């Protein structure tokens, strides 16, 4: 399976798949209790605020050396009382199945599925310069009009773009950056020039 490399976050197709299954179950249970948004936020918080900051705890709950029974008290002590009962039960179920290593994928998938259910769409925008709030809101509302959905915007600053912006919705990328434009212009110009030279060699030859 995939190792860890820096280009983007590591993707593990197997875990991703498991994540979608558990996320679906989690959302189903949470919707019944009427607190889907809250539960998803909690799971995300567990990943971002606890596991990411305490790698040792992360390792501890992941390790297959501990049995489910040994893991239960750790989970209770770490999260007991701080999270809703639904989330706690869910963590226990995941632990029982030995799938706590998929927690990141579950959080990711749950957010995606919740967004889809609420008619929201995740849009990732990359720009060369940090966006101020006014521009952010304008981009967000304009994209919302175009996509006919509520937009959940995430942004990133990337110097390499030089200018313009790159919008990513799902697997589709709309690239209106200066860098891509320059690259394409170079390619088109090269192709056309090459063709022009090939078609009329004598025009370009130096008179001898």
């Amino acid at each position, binding site marked *: 399976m995939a190792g860890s*490399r820096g*280009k983007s976050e590591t993707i593990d*197709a197997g875990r991703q798949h498991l994540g979608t299954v558990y996320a679906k179950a989690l959302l189903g249970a949470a919707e019944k209790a009427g607190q889907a948004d809250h539960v998803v936020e909690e799971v995300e918080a567990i990943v971002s605020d606890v596991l990411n900051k305490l790698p040792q705890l992360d390792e501890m709950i992941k390790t297959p050396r501990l049995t489910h029974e040994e893991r239960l008290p750790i989970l209770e002590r770490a999260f007991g009382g701080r999270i809703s009962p639904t989330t706690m039960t869910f963590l226990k179920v995941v632990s029982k199945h030995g799938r706590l290593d998929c927690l990141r994928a579950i959080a990711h998938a749950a957010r995606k599925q919740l967004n889809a259910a609420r008619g929201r769409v995740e849009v990732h925008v990359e720009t060369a310069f940090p966006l101020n709030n006014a521009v952010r809101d304008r981009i967000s509302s304009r994209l919302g009009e175009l996509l006919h959905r509520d937009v959940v915007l995430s942004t990133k600053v990337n110097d390499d773009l030089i200018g313009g912006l790159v919008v990513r919705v*799902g697997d*589709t990328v*709309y690239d*209106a950056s200066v860098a891509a434009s320059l690259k394409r212009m170079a390619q088109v110009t090269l192709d056309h*020039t090459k063709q022009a*030279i090939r078609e009329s060699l004598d025009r*370009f030859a130096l008179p001898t």
Partner: protein
Amino acid sequence: MKFNADEIASVIQAEIEKYESAIDVREVGTVLEVGDGIARVYGLSNIMAGEMVEFPSGVNGLAFNLEENSVGVIILGDYLQIEEGDEVKALGKLLSVPVGNAVLGRVLDPLGNPLDGKGPVATSELRPVEFLAPGVAGRQPVREPLQTGIKAIDAMTPIGRGQRELIIGDRKTGKTTIAIDTIINQKHSGVKCFYVAIGQKESSVANTIKALQENGAMDYTTVILAGASAPAPLQYVAAYAGTSMAEYFTYKGEHALIVYDDLSKQAVAYRELSLLMRRPPGREAFPGDVFYCHSRLLERSCKLSQELGGGSLTSLPIIETLEGEVSAYIPTNVISITDGQIYVQPDLFFKGIRPAMNVGISVSRVGGAAQIKAMKDKQVAGGLRLALAAFRELEAIAQLSTDLDAATQSRLDRGYRMVEILKQPQFQPLEVVDQVMVIFAANSGSLDDVPATRVQAFEKEFLQFMRDLRPEIRSQIAEKKELTPELKTALTDAIRQFKGTFAKGK
């Protein structure tokens, strides 16, 4: 040639001035893992099977496996520059290769890039590599001959334009030579030739190209090369790419010939890909659709109907067997797809019978309809196959008994001379008229008193004689394509006349 930099700069400036920027929309995915010519990609949720993708290094790939969580991509090029996490872009188009007159005389890789150092292929026409074969309405029966220039083949397993004739045999039995001779013989027939070398040593391909050049065959031939060192995806695609280049002429109403040398190596490349993609292995670890892999390729060889221009694509697939094992998986598959096979055997080859074709089990299922009347004549090749079969039987019996009656002995002698006359050195294809005259001479018994060792000299001098002293017979056969009784008499007469001089010269 020296170039004027200012002129080039002005063209570039004009290009830049009229360049219009548009938003670049693309479907992307991320490389999960890569190796051995394949990559697994996450994302690309709307990609279709067979669609092209592009890696950041500029290398292209083909979507090969669409799975629930990932896409299996075969990489057409250098996969060592691709890293995990790279962005993969779907191009929304199918793999295409350059086609047209510009590819003739070139040595290309399966993507149409030149390998011969003669500069870029100057054509803007492209054709998709995978193309659906014409249906029944778009075809007509084979009716024109494709002369191979090899006596044994043109006489006994004739090939028609649009036919698929398999050349099968062990290694080093002269399979490629038959194909190369056929290409060389198309010099004046206007048939465009394509030689697809799959998984072969580059040194032997270099020799083949040299032979083609020396015989002036490179002017109308394209060599598509995916050598032994090429990655499996390129070896797999090469056959389809070559077919696509050849089809261009077929659909223009012209005639083309394609040689796949060889399809067993292509099947092995396909097996490699399929196993890497974790498709379930079947017999001999080949995937279940390896039959389809070959059938869809060979179905593209056809004789098009008059409405579609009447062009044709003849194919000569080559299969290498191990120890004469024709009942292995790939040989049986390809035998069942093709319209006949030429079976070459090592024992015949080492006996000096070259081409080492086994007449008994070589067949051509449709080519007979395309044979010219003169060749089909009872006194030429009409009864040749049966006569040779009878001779083989007799020869086997003769080995057991010591004294034979005169009739049997004379039939044996005729057979030995027939075998001798069907021998032919490589790169020396014969015109069909010459073949008819030589086989007629042997059939009429004129060779019976010539020692077997002198038969080849007889043939050579006889043809020279006919060319120099009796050209009217040659031209009449060529014109009428049929042996009329008058022509037969004239021919017999000429043979008698020649034998007088030949006996004297001994």
